[in-house]
């Protein structure tokens, strides 16, 4: 077997025919997400327990105490079962732990996640998490150590199942037709035109003729150049544009400031033309 890095990218074609290139979430991220969720669950359970005890000790009303016990029992049940269900059924399809790890649940066939999917997915936690946990606990209760070890080995098969298949599917995923994929948050870059427009500089004033030298395509190239901030490229581009529009550089004029101002002015000009219905594709497009 070769030691090649496994390929985590999966083809995922939407009904529109777009390949989304999903990335399978690594086991470590999922384990971390589960640990986070478990910590949250234990924390909430402790808070609920303390609240119930304090409220029960304080009050002498029998009905109120009863209601607290019912609240605690139902809370325990809902935390164990509904927590994953509710969060994964929400549009984010991820529990807080998964969100922190930037992963989410998705259906393998590209369909929407249904309540039955999510339910089947999380019912399997009973034998993946709680059953191994039980075998860990019984060891301290006088059950034969060998028996407990055998049980732990048996249930370990369920727990570690995701490590032994290509898509890191756990039992619940297998049954529900889901998988867990990475969902990194994508941030939009800041708009290049906003900063210079806020402070209109008197030093850079371009005539319409100077701005009509270029179209949308050149604007986009210019934006790319500005974002990269590669000093050589910026100098070269600034010189080309100055020559083309006949711009005489002032004293101490920085290439970047010039391009930045020209970009803002050009974009404003092109947007104005669009308002009257003219779209200038590139510099060869007549106005």
């Amino acid at each position, binding site marked *: 077997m070769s030691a090649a890095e496994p390929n985590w990218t999966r083809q995922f074609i939407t009904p529109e025919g777009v390949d989304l290139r999903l990335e399978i979430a690594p086991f470590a991220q999922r384990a971390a997400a589960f640990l986070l969720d478990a910590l949250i669950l234990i924390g909430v359970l402790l808070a609920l327990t303390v609240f119930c005890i304090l409220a029960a000790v304080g009050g002498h009303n029998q009905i109120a105490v*009863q209601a607290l016990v*019912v609240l605690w029992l139902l809370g325990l*049940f809902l935390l164990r079962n509904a927590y994953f269900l509710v969060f994964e059924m929400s549009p984010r399809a991820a529990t807080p732990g998964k969100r922190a790890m930037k992963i989410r649940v998705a259906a393998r066939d590209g369909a929407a996640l249904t*309540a039955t*999917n999510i339910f*089947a997915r999380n019912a399997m936690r*009973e*034998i993946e998490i709680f059953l191994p946990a039980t075998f860990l606990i019984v060891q301290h209760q006088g059950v034969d150590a060998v028996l407990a070890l055998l049980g732990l080995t048996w249930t370990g098969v*369920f727990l570690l199942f995701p490590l032994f298949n290509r898509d890191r599917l756990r*039992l619940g995923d297998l049954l529900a037709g889901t998988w867990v994929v990475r969902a990194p948050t994508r941030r939009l870059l800041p708009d290049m035109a906003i900063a210079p427009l806020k402070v209109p500089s008197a030093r850079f004033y371009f005539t319409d003729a100077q701005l009509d030298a270029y179209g949308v395509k050149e604007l986009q190239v210019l934006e790319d150049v500005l974002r990269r901030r590669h000093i050589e490229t910026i100098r070269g581009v600034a010189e080309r544009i100055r020559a083309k529009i006949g711009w005489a550089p002032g004293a101490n004029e920085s290439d970047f400031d010039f391009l930045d101002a020209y970009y803002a002015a050009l974009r404003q000009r092109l947007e104005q033309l669009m308002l009257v219905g003219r779209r200038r594709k590139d510099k060869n497009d007549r106005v």
Partner: protein
Amino acid sequence: MPAGLSQGRDPAATTESLRATLRDAGNHTALLSIFATFLFTHNAQVALFGFALGFAFGVPTAFLQLLNGCALGALFAVFTAHGLGLELGGWLMIHGVTELFAVTLASAAGFHIGWTLAFPGRRRRVDALVDAGKRTGAVMFGVLIMLFVAGALEGVARQLITSTPARYLIAATSGVVWCAFFYLPRAKPLLGQTGPKSR
């Protein structure tokens, strides 16, 4: 039968003490809501557990069912020996019709998964499992609702109604209601995919 479950209801017990367990505590009405909640959450957890165990080819699910059946049978053996079989039936059936129906459905859902895993038929094992998961997921939703009703019946109704004929009446009514729900034909499935895939 585990001692925690039998609570003194063993062959050595007297007829009177056995009868007393069937009357239950009429004076503990204050705790009924707690009892009902406990029964619902406990039974639902066990049903979910039995369902999930179906993944191990259904063997542990069968074992769990067998264990519960044996406990029930042992209980009946003790009570009928004292001529209390009919009363025990009422005590059990008032909620048992609903609860045992739900538990049977949960186990059946587990078996369905175990069976599909072992014998997927002509489809790929993965695809067959997804279908089984969708179908049983819908079943388990219903099971939880049934267990909620059963918890209320066992926790409240059984403690308040001590007459055996009345208990049997409720048992029969719940049986008719559930059978009507499951067996009367309906236009389209309530939840998820209940029939075989027709694509």
